[in-house]
């Protein structure tokens, strides 16, 4: 997708960003400024200012109904924001469709698994690579003109990605028939196949047992280190969030009530209040 240089907007980092120090000199991969959305008379998200470093692992937490998934839907343009701006790698995503935003470098998984269940594992990953595969209709019909090469390249890359998560052996299985944990992993592989700059994970540990969660944490770290991309995750499992996130945002009633490192968040009285309620007066 061609973006004219004039569309590129750079805004200064908000002072309240949670970008880790080593990322400070780099432009954030994702920024939002005063982002908000109303559904009818209800304000679901308001005054959201985020800045996520290019290789940061960032957690988005908050009580149920705080608007976390709505934030993901805003960032991927599933919802058009009522107010504010989103800059993805410095480009404004306003008015773009979901597939265009995907091409700009954002990928996500879903709270409830949304794989293409009737397709094979391999085809699911290849769907993720849709925009990197350049075969014309003619060449795919005649199977000539570089079609085989392009197909082979896509196949190899998909296999490599699956290998990275130890799933290459499952590539001919139907996605819908995989066990739950493998389906969750495949969703991440499929999202990574779109070649994103930032990966959004919506409750990646939901329904997982402690050993699977530990493996997931390891995988998230490996994704960041190997692919050098940012990861933003919504999660209720505090061990996971506190264990791997460098920065955490806490959302309540659609607004950010706290930002900081895991230790700062743990000690923040507003966060404790949002999760546990107010201390009773003695």
């Amino acid at each position, binding site marked *: 997708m061609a973006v004219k240089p004039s569309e590129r907007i750079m805004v200064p980092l908000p002072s309240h960003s949670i970008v880790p120090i080593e990322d400070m000199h780099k432009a954030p991969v994702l920024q939002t400024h005063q982002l908000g959305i109303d559904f009818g008379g209800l304000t679901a998200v308001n005054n959201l200012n985020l800045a996520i470093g290019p290789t940061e692992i960032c957690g988005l937490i908050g009580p149920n109904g705080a608007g976390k998934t709505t934030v993901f839907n805003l960032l991927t343009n599933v919802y058009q924001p009522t107010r504010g701006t989103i800059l993805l790698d410095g480009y404004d995503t306003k008015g773009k469709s979901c*597939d265009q935003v995907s091409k700009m470098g954002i990928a996500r998984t879903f709270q409830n698994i949304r794989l293409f269940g*009737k*397709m094979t594992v391999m085809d699911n990953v*290849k*769907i993720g690579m849709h925009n990197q595969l350049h075969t014309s209709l003619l060449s*795919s019909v005649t199977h000539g003109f570089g079609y085989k090469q392009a197909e082979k390249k896509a196949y190899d890359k998909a296999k490599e990605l699956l290998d990275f998560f130890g799933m290459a052996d499952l590539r001919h299985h139907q996605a819908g028939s995989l066990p739950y944990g493998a389906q969750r992993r495949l969703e991440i592989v499929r*999202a990574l196949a779109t070649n994103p700059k930032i990966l959004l994970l919506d409750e990646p540990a939901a329904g997982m047992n402690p050993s699977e969660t530990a493996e997931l944490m390891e995988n998230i770290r490996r994704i960041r280190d190997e692919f050098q991309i940012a990861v933003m995750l919504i999660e209720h499992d505090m061990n996971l969030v506190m264990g791997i996130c460098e920065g955490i945002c806490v959302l309540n009633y659609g607004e950010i009530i706290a930002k900081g490192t895991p230790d700062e968040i743990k000690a923040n009285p507003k966060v404790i209040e949002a999760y546990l309620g107010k201390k009773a007066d003695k």
Partner: protein
Amino acid sequence: MSFLSNLISGLSLGSIYALIALGYTMVYGIAKMLNFAHGDVIMVGAFTVIVAVNSMGLPAVLGIVLSVLICVVMGVTIERIAYKPLRSSPPLSVLITAIGVSYFLQSLALIIFGSTQKSFPKVFNMEPVHLGELTIKGESIETLVVTTAIMIGLTLFINKTKMGKAMRAVSEDRAAAELMGISVNKTITVTFAIGSALASVAGLFFGATYGFIGPYTGSMPGIKAFVAAVFGGIGSIPGAMLGGILLGVIENLAKAYISTELSDAIVFGVLVLVLCLKPTGLLGKKINEKV
């Protein structure tokens, strides 16, 4: 032997239904709408051949190519103008719009061509084939050969090409496909283009088989093909092929052995029976609702 020849003409009629049913089922699977104007594309395709060959004196092959092109452009234009603005509206609005488009096309044809049926040019000049006592009409053979080739081609396209995979992904989960970078608009455009091209080919064979085309010619095969799509399991491509062929065979055998007047009633009766036993159609997917 007459059973065999009835069966073959049933297969030939059924494969025409299957071509039309494919358009219904693909549009339903991908755009999640019932395009009731689809049947009238057949009529437009057939009239294009009539105008090109009878009035303009073009060779039949050119007339056929022109008919496919016009139908593709028309199908894509209808989607852009009438259906795309309603993409996020309730399904009922889109359904009613589709019926409106159908009446629009019929009335347009009525204004241009009048209400009398026009004779379809002889585009196929194949002699009947005699195998012993069995006589097979030339049109039947040509219909079967071409439709089989088209169905094989379509199956390969859907399963092997990048666009085909994108179409399957959109039909399974539109939002997830879009977030994987697949342009839903482009996919829907391609779907309408393919569906309309298939309908124009169906119109050609329909004209060649029945010989006459009028403004309302498209509606009955359109409805039968819709029935065939539901019969096979709407949204399923092999289902539409199977449903169309079965429907044609049942209709023809009912005409030959039971009653010509009752043949449509029998066809729809079979549909009711199948849907009672298997509500999603023969090859329809089971929808598991998680509670």
